[in-house]
């Protein structure tokens, strides 16, 4: 018995030490000392006239951070209500208008800093679907300006139950403290020393731009995997491709000027934004200055890439590819060109388009099955449409066509598996191929 007591006592001591350690750890994680620079006296709804220059700068940060993408839906500008499906349940974006009861009107600037940069809101911890993990890098000055801008937003009364659709235990906001302890770094932006343009680009990419929210893969608990920073991930059935210096499926072989043009207009005349990236260009990136876009491009092109390399080319003239080549000519070539040259700013080119060559062809499969609308911008307002081919081709035919365009001309890409097409056809509830006669 004495032995047991000693053993039990030892365990208890260990547990105590661990708990104390965890307490310090938790305290550090939740510590928002950086935000002491913010005013903690005046509520948002009580701010009178804000400095117009600060408001204008704040609007720029709002655009760069793309707040409206999630916080604006039918209920009004910034009034929340956007449902975000996560593997852990459905989240609803909050009302961030200055309405005192249902929005953030009662928050002080300090509360706002704590929410945006540290994920600690007025109802408790925020869920990391809100990219506070990236916004933590936003500078004090930009936060002050953003706050000034928010004071000019019209209040909208719209009550939102943000986490009512989350599954237990994720419905408990405090659980996010544990998540933050594991994955959140609340420190400010520290640029790599040297080049000022690269530093600005890194700040825009990692801070307000929160590019890694989609373009970095996440682990089983939904945290970004730092070692695969910007190396591509699947989000909602779209591939957010690798946007590093990787020369095969990244930006290594694309000029910084072309990357900047893509960000600002939705296309560089070769690759074209569609799906969620089209929205990012439309609502956010086209509003940035050319200098910022060039800085972002320069940073992205400096990021170490994955080791995915150009594979052996599947001979596009081989007998297996014969049917696909014929169908390319019949269904694709009128717009995408008989030599995969595209139509400038209207229709993406295929030859030499690295966006086509990602190891995972999810976006290509999705676009074939559902069709897509090209992103638009003030400079290139067309937003041409790609029709769905689900009714015309079966899984093997779509896989064959995609394998063809990934390997025709100067391209070389991994063959597409018909099983992936079948899976996505089911997941997207896309139409089955129509009967094809005798």
């Amino acid at each position, binding site marked *: 018995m004495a032995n047991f007591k000693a053993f039990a006592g030892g365990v208890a001591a260990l547990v105590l030490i661990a708990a104390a350690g965890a307490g310090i750890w938790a305290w550090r994680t939740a510590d928002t000392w950086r935000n002491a620079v913010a005013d903690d006296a005046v509520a948002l709804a009580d701010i009178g006239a804000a400095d117009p220059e600060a408001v204008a700068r704040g609007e720029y940060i709002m655009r760069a951070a793309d707040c409206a993408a999630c916080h604006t839906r039918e209920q009004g500008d910034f009034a929340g209500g956007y449902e975000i499906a996560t593997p852990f349940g459905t989240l609803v974006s909050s009302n961030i208008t200055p309405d005192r009861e249902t929005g953030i009107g009662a928050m002080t600037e300090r509360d706002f800093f704590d929410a945006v940069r540290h994920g600690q809101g007025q109802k408790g911890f925020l869920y990391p679907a809100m990219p506070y993990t990236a916004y933590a890098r936003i500078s004090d000055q930009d936060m002050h300006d953003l706050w000034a801008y928010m004071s000019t937003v019209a209040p909208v009364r719209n009550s939102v139950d943000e986490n009512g659709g989350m599954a237990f235990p994720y419905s408990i906001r405090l659980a996010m403290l544990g998540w933050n302890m594991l994955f959140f770094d609340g420190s400010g932006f520290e640029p790599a020393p040297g080049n000022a343009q690269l530093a600005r680009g890194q700040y825009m990419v990692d801070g307000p731009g929160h590019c890694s929210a989609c373009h970095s893969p996440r682990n089983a608990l939904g945290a970004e995997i730092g070692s695969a920073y910007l190396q591509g991930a699947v989000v909602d059935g779209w591939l957010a491709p690798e946007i590093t210096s990787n020369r095969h499926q990244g930006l290594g072989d694309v000029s910084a000027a072309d990357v900047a043009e893509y960000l600002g207009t939705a296309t560089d005349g070769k690759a074209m934004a569609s799906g969620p990236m089209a929205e990012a260009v439309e*609502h956010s990136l086209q509003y940035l200055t050319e200098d910022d876009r060039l800085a972002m491009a320069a940073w992205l092109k400096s990021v170490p890439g994955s080791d995915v390399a150009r594979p052996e080319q599947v001979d596009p003239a081989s007998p297996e590819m014969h049917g696909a080549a014929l169908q390319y*000519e019949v269904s694709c070539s009128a717009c995408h060109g008989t030599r995969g040259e595209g139509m400038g700013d209207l229709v993406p080119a295929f030859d030499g388009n690295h966006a086509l060559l990602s190891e995972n062809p999810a976006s290509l499969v999705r676009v074939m099955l559902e069709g897509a*609308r090209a992103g638009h911008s003030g*400079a290139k307002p067309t*937003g041409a449409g790609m029709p769905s081919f689900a009714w015309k081709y079966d899984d093997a035919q779509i896989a064959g066509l995609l394998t063809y365009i990934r390997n025709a001309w100067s391209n070389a890409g991994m063959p597409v598996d018909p099983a992936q097409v079948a899976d996505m056809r089911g997941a997207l509830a896309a*139409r089955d191929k*129509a*009967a094809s*006669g*005798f």
Partner: protein
Amino acid sequence: MNRREALFSLGALTAAGTVASRGAAAEMSGYPADMALDRGFLPRAVIPGGQMQVLTDDRQRATVTAVFDRLIPADDLGPSASEAGCIEFLDAQLAGRYGAGAALYREGPKMAGEDALSQSPQFIATPSERYEAGLNALEAWAQKTDGASFADLQPDRKDEILKGMEDGSVELSSEVNTKAFFELLLANVREGYFSDPIYGGNRDMAGWRLIGFPGARYDYRLYADRTGEKLDLEPVSLIPRD
């Protein structure tokens, strides 16, 4: 404003528009995001191996098969009409809006001499009803004159009867405009032999291969400058089988 001024001002407008749109970010609202085709726009294919819907009577089906296979017989150049699926094609057409005469004006009254006045025969009956009456009349006529089913007659005799129907020397019955019925048969067998295979006929694109028609293509830039050359383009169905 004269023509020159008008053109100049148009140029100025275009230039102004270009400059403005180059500079400013802008978002368009109301873009249709859903690019999946509406079901109503999809071609409705005949399902291979389906049951007959209109030509369910064995005798009628044998009669029309016999007629079609004399109009387009099997030979060195290709399969017969029925081998190429023209009966399936016809059945599907008769079961649908074509068979119901959906595009025809069929309200009465039909006046005497109206066919001559319109310079083509007019019908209250739907194409489906005309097939029913016409095939029954042809079979009855063959039984009466030859003592056998039309389908069982020798090819030469079938041709003789069909030629008589075409030139008006054979009248199947007072109820059937025989010449017009022949023209209906001829038009439909051609349609079946040369329409896209998804509609049941032109099986394996035999009709298209016969005449060198390249099928459902719309872009010939690859071939535009290859004049005077036999291209032998592979035909393509609207919904390719493989």
